[in-house]
């Protein structure tokens, strides 16, 4: 077994049409006072995503580069970064989109940077729990022999909002959030709406959504929806709740 006979390497040599420069933001606490840029030359292979480029750097050039990834199929939500200024899933963004480069990779904007391309998302998790993202029912739970009925139309009413992979691209793109980290933000509100609009749910989460830092913080920039890789449309979720909350405030007797 010899590294040179290794298929992946053969591919690299055969298919590479040249190289592309990746300019990667590095931040090592204790060592750097603020992020610095480090450049690497990476083979430009048509099937490579930006993430493959990063893996190449980590495996072959610089073992100390840190970033998150796992599924590399756009569903775990861990590989969000800022690529040439835009928040993107790096496993679903291809190097060839940037011609001959360079490609600039930075951590997601709007979050504290723990290290290199890794950001702190604990605040987001706290926000997520705060909207009660579970099915709220009143009364006894029925036995585990029958399901609640739900027609395909009823499913359709919230399905889109259930597709969120918590990748946080929307937070990074939202100027309101970047300015004010207390803003509950697009994905958390969309998730609240996912449950609100579920025919099986009995809550409306008014107490946590009808707040200045919740839906009323949003000025409908709409960037969240534009960058969302899963077409969740959080902007729509928020505007819809604004209407719900406004009507409920004006007509206090109307629920939902």
């Amino acid at each position, binding site marked *: 077994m010899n590294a040179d006979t*290794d298929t992946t390497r053969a591919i690299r040599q055969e298919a590479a049409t040249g190289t592309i420069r990746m300019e990667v933001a590095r931040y090592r606490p204790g060592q750097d006072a603020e992020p610095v840029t480090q450049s690497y030359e990476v083979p430009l292979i048509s099937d490579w995503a930006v993430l493959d480029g990063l893996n190449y750097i980590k495996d072959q050039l610089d073992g100390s580069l840190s970033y998150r990834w796992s599924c590399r199929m756009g*569903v*775990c939500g861990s590989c969000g970064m800022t690529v040439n200024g835009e928040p993107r899933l790096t496993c679903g963004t291809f190097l060839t989109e940037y011609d001959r480069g360079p490609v600039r990779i930075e951590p997601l904007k709007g979050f504290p940077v723990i290290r290199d391309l890794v950001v702190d998302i604990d605040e987001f998790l706290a926000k997520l729990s705060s909207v009660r993202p579970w099915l709220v029912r009143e009364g006894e739970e029925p036995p*585990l022999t029958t*399901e609640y009925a739900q027609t395909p139309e009823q499913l359709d009413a*919230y399905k889109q909002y259930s597709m969120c992979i918590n990748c946080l691209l929307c937070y990074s793109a939202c100027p309101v959030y970047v300015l004010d980290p207390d803003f509950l933000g697009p994905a958390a509100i969309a998730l609240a709406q996912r449950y609100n609009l579920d025919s099986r749910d009995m809550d409306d989460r008014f107490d946590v959504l009808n707040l200045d830092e919740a839906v009323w913080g949003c000025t409908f920039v709409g960037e969240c929806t534009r960058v969302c890789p899963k077409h969740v449309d959080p902007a729509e979720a928020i505007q819809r709740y604004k209407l719900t909350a406004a009507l409920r405030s004006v007509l206090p007797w109307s629920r939902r």
Partner: protein
Amino acid sequence: MIDVLIVGGGAAGLRAAVAVAERDPSLTVAVVSKVYPMRSHTVSAEGGAAAVIGIGDTLDEHCYDTISGGDWLCDQDAVEAFVNEAPRELIQLEHWGCPWSRESDGRVAVRPFGGMKKMRTWYAADKTGFHLLHTLFQTTLKYQDVIRYDEWYVTKLVVDDGRVHGVVAVEIRTGRVETIPARTVVLATGGCGRVFPFTTNAAIKTGDGMALAYREGAPLKDMEFVQYHPTGLPFTGILITEAARAEGGWLINKDGYRYLQDYDLGTPTPTPKLRSMELGPRDRLSQAFVHEQSKGRTVDTPYGPVVYLDLRHLGEDKIEARIPFVRELCRSYQNLDPAADLIPVRPVVHYMMGGVHTDIDGATPIAGLYAAGESACVSINGANRLGSNSLPECLVFGRRAGLAAAEFARAHTGGQARAVRTQGEDERRRLERVREGRRTGERVADLRERMQHTLEGAAGIYRTGDVLAKAVDTLADLRRRAEEVRFEDTSTAFNTELINLQELHTMLEVAQTIVACALNRQESRGAHQRTDFPARDDDAYLAHSLVHRAPDGTPSVGLLPVTITRWPPGERVYGRD
């Protein structure tokens, strides 16, 4: 002191956590996970989850499909428990809000799946695992007392005197190494597909839990049974779910011929027929691919030979409604549209049938240590898992393991403070030594690649004794070299090189057991096919492989009888009624 400490935040781990929290709120539960729980690999599962609900389906039929699918290597008592409890688990998920796909009258819809004689696979479009995991994760948020250690990497189990006392883990963000004392530990760390080069598995699937248990003396079971999924996208290994075939997709070779008919899998019909052709089991379909390749009927690509999955006749509407994610993946990663183009596919390492040896309640031979999900081998999957049995397995045995651990924790208070302290100290010192760095030596990635190619060459779809024997030596050599790798990242904050190195060690450990078990089993059964022993041999090998770690660190393999209750071993018949 934590009563039940769960390692792993996938379907199995989270189900265990909720089970404990619901059963006895006075118990302290913690979930340790090296990624945020909703990033766990369960999120990638696409096709569905099997459980009997339909009219005209019976529990016995699900048992039979599972057992014959597993080539009679399943423990039949475990299969019965699994099949009995799977429906209530999936309904429980429904009650927690899982957006299962529905019939027009509001009932949960089911779809056919490979190796299943009836339609019993529940699905949420083709993102079943994603919805299941997020529903579970969001439901656990309701139990605010469940402690979460997100992005903590467990490097060691503390075991003393045959009993587990906790774990040692690194907080990845800060690099802090801490010992977490616990009365019981549930391992739910998922599979180990990453020991192979070409896999559907996420980067985190490195067999950690298996290695952790194995190092402390718990045996692993049936490690030679590695499932290849017949339809992965060439370069990335991204899975095209079996649901694509269940909805009517065809596998064709380079001549446009539905080649499965040549391999005793039935005759082609225009619409899918259960347990026939494309809906045969995965082992048989992957093996058929190898034969097509040797006959020169596959298509060569830069990423190896492929056949085609043809969905064009399904039409755009059906593809959008039933398998939209397949379309999304093909478009984003293969630059083609399945409604108009053929999808190139090849077999890809997908699932580990083997795992930590447990009983029907998830208990391992180490007192207080439990395992569930893909990291465990209960075993219901035998020599070949049926698609859509794994998610319900995580739920059923995640819950069982959680409850058993809770029982144990209530019965056994007190702990071994001294063992915890000394073992924790030793482990911390070891990790800190690694982090001091090393300028010379090979790269972690290079050794990983060599291991992966060794495994692919020796323990692929077809295996032979000579190559396996050579792989034993290669892996032993790689293990030695892994002790002296180059290590560049000396910082504490989010040191992924440190994690990658620990993962290399666990993968090598697991790889050795796979090769050892494969070498030991001199027969062909399910996913384990020996060209030098092409027949199934029930007299000698109707038994589980059980592998212990010998004091010198090498695997030592023995056999353990299979539990057979009502279904005596028979012939596996597909496509013939």
